[in-house]
């Protein structure tokens, strides 16, 4: 299936992918981040249970320097 991460297309070669699994795939394990899926925040406690669907739009954000 195909999803969008931060505006870019990402192909996933399995239909059963949790947010946790995606975070591992993206090499973001242990990073402090927040994730929005189709406009709704996915609480960190739900990362293990939320399954991605074809066409999902994800925003993955972190804190950066700013004023």
């Amino acid at each position, binding site marked *: 299936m195909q999803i969008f*991460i*931060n*505006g*870019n297309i990402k192909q996933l070669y399995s239909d059963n992918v949790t947010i946790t699994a995606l975070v591992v795939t*993206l*090499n*973001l*394990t*242990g*990073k*402090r*981040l*927040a994730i*929005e899926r189709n406009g709704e*925040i996915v*609480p*960190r406690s739900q990362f293990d249970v939320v399954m991605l669907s074809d066409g999902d739009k994800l*925003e*993955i*954000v*972190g*804190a*950066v*320097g*700013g*004023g």
Partner: protein
Amino acid sequence: MNDDLIIAGKNYSSRLLVGTGKYKDFSETRAAIDASGAQIVTVAIRRTNIGQHAGEPSLLDCLPPEEFTYLPNTAGCYSADDAVRTLRLARELLDGHKLVKLEVLGDPKTLYPNVIETIAAAKTLVKDGFDVMVYTSDDPIIAKQLEEIGCCAVMPLASLIGSGMGILNPWNLEIIIENAKVPVLVDAGVGTASDAAIAMELGCAGILMNTAIAVAKNPVLMASAMKKAVEAGREAFLAGRMPKKLYSASPSSPVAGLITAA
């Protein structure tokens, strides 16, 4: 003398709040912030760089959230909806953290606040349980309205963000301060230490700055200067300045006992 700044029920001994943008690297960021003595630091919320190296240091490593109070901002947001969305992500990112800096900008050239969108966002965020420190214009009526909505601090600009133009309208700032029951902080426009001192002498509760420190030739030294300026300005405000006397001098030395011509 205990003269803490109290924001949303929490005490801070430093009245200087600093941004974390525009530094050369994280080590300069950390050194400057240490020199500033700031306890509250602003951060921006941005898309994570997918594909970055796992071991790459992050801002949170450089400024551990246990040591500093984070103030996530909405820099770059031009609508109330975007600002609210950004801060909800920030709250999730920072484990339910409630203290935020709201700014909704009007245009990319001036970065002047869009007060209509700012008010709309402030209402939503306050209702949603956030402690909102709000960036706004130096319009006293808008500042009062933001306070009445329930913002925990009102932060008018001294001049445009990143301009270093100093305090363009001290009279409006005085009106805002006099009318306010919540802390009023100058946010944006401070260029050098004297600007910071003047803002504090006017009675500001604190100052939030970024560019003036980060873009100085020596950011760490400027951070130290700003710390002293904020403290000096605060003490001068508390001490109460002498009245200004226009058009007439008043000698400091006794007028009696002068020697006369032999």
